[in-house]
């Protein structure tokens, strides 16, 4: 497992290639990338705060659970903190599994859990000031399907 929380930008192609090169006997790799989106218009920058120590622990637990549940070969979770401009990459996950269904499902599970269980908070700075992004009920509801 490769769990990283960092301020620096990352190279999606390089990360995906390096992840793929480490896999042996896997039939499928799924990667997901989150990007800063200017939803309302006028976004100057996105600031991401996290809880050092707990963040890494929470991501590791979520990744370990995905790995066990879907029999994954490997998991990568990379999440940035600090200030980011619109269209910058915030984070990525990658899953490797013998078959594509497990790789896709595990990636979705990781994203659903990460959004509501890993201690990150987004603040949008724009022309109208700065505001913390509110959690969405649908993100919390998205966890339900994994608990059945």
């Amino acid at each position, binding site marked *: 497992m490769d769990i990283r929380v960092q301020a620096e930008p990352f190279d999606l192609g390089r990360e995906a290639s390096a992840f793929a090169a480490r896999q042996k006997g896997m039939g499928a790799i799924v990667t997901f990338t989150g990007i800063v989106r200017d939803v309302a218009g006028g976004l100057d920058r996105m600031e991401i705060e996290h809880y050092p120590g*707990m963040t890494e622990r929470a991501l590791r637990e979520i990744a370990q659970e995905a790995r066990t549940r879907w029999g994954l070969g490997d998991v990568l979770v990379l999440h940035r903190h600090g200030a980011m401009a619109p269209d910058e990459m915030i*984070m990525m996950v990658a899953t490797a599994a013998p078959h594509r269904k497990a790789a896709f499902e595990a990636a979705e599970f990781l994203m659903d859990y990460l*959004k509501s269980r*890993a*201690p*990150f908070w*987004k603040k949008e700075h724009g022309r109208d000031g700065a505001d*913390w992004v509110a*959690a969405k009920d649908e993100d919390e509801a998205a966890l339900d399907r994994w608990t059945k």
Partner: protein
Amino acid sequence: MDVLYFAWVRERVGLPRERVETGAATVRELVAELRAREARYDAAFADERALRVAVDQELADFDAEIAGAREVAFFPPMTGG
């Protein structure tokens, strides 16, 4: 114990962390002690449903026991990803 605040909770309280000497048995009792201190704490903790808590870096609820805990953190619902 160390009490940590993140995101708008940190901004309302006005500091990221502090050392608190407390005899509180649960998170809820600790919150009541903090709220009784000053208006800024009262404002930060006014709506329990808008808050999440971690005890020693594990998500917990307001009934969680905190005797012996090293670190209690308060923050709004997470918005990563």
